[in-house]
């Protein structure tokens, strides 16, 4: 190792972090190298000076001024916020408890909606344009082929024009008339 490599060993030497072997080699180098020995001595002195001479202390009126500032800070904070953030129940503030409750409720709602069976409505909800129309029956487990054959089941209020809806209503009334009279349409 040369001097520039030994220079990087000075700091661990000052911190007493060199291993036994490293320390032995380092000391042997210092004995034969006055420059590294002088640098080590200077760094040691600087370290002591930094610890002893760079300590600073505050003015004696610091604490009263700090207390006055804290009082001002407390008065500036709204009382409702202090109440919300102050610890109450088992070390938790009301604001954090209410946040936790909201999160728990959201988890329950999401969980329930995931595990419920398919809850598609049997009857389409009426819309403003179809409130006067009779509801069109939609069966969940019915055969799609038979639904396709029956125009009453395939036609929905959303995808028909007013004219088509009137025609469907007329057909429906006619069929109901036949049913009531015991005849086939």
């Amino acid at each position, binding site marked *: 190792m040369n001097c520039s490599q030994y220079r990087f060993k000075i700091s*661990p030497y000052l911190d007493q972090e060199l291993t036994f072997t490293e320390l032995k080699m380092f000391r042997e180098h210092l004995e034969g190298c006055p420059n590294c020995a002088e640098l080590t001595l*200077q760094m040691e002195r600087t370290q002591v000076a930094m610890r002893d*001479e760079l*300590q600073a202390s*505050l003015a004696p009126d*610091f604490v009263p001024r700090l207390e006055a500032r804290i009082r001002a800070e407390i008065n500036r904070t709204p009382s409702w916020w202090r109440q919300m*953030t102050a610890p109450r129940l088992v070390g938790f503030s009301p604001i954090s408890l209410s946040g936790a409750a909201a999160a728990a409720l959201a988890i329950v709602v999401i969980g329930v909606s995931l595990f419920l069976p398919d809850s598609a409505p049997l009857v389409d909800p009426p819309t403003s344009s179809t409130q006067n129309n009779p509801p069109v029956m939609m069966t969940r487990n019915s055969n799609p082929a038979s639904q396709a054959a029956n125009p009453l089941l395939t036609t929905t209020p959303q995808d028909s024009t007013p004219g088509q809806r009137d025609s469907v209503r007329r057909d429906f009334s006619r069929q109901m008339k036949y049913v009531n009279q015991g005849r086939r349409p």
Partner: protein
Amino acid sequence: MTPHQFTDEELIAQFQAGNENAYLEIVARFKDRLFTFVYRFVGDRDLAEDLVQDTLVKVYTHRHAYREIARFSTWIYTIAGNLARTELRKRKRRATFSMSTLGFGEKEYELPSEDYAPTKALEGEQTEKDIRMALARLPLHFRTVIILRDVQELSYEEISKIMKIPLGTVKSRVNRARLRLQEMLANVRTKGEERSE
């Protein structure tokens, strides 16, 4: 049990439970240490005093933010360090904006006078002044670690947590900061000796 028999962590726990006297003990314990750290960091006494006040006010108002996963000293030094860094950044921006050629903190340092001849009594004062000058010229990341290590005497682990950098990086930064500081001090001393001749 008197307050000074409690550990820092016990004191903050008592303060969190509503004991204001515990806060006063924390202030008594940390005010000068924080002041030394911040003053050596920013190089301006008044600003350092304001920043220590800000730090201690934050400890008061955010006392419930402290969790006993780290040492209390780590937490409080982190607050002080962050405030000091933010302030330095602000000042740097202002200095750049005003096109000032003076670096931050330079105004309070004076060049050694022509009749510089250190007596034994003045020697310590001069050494302190030299170190302050050299510290002020160190890059911020070197200055922070060397103050925390050699002035505040914190452990490498604590510095690593305060600065949020790996332990190995702290050690290598301290190493390089000490060497750089020594070079600067050697230059300052050489200039001083030249003037005294």
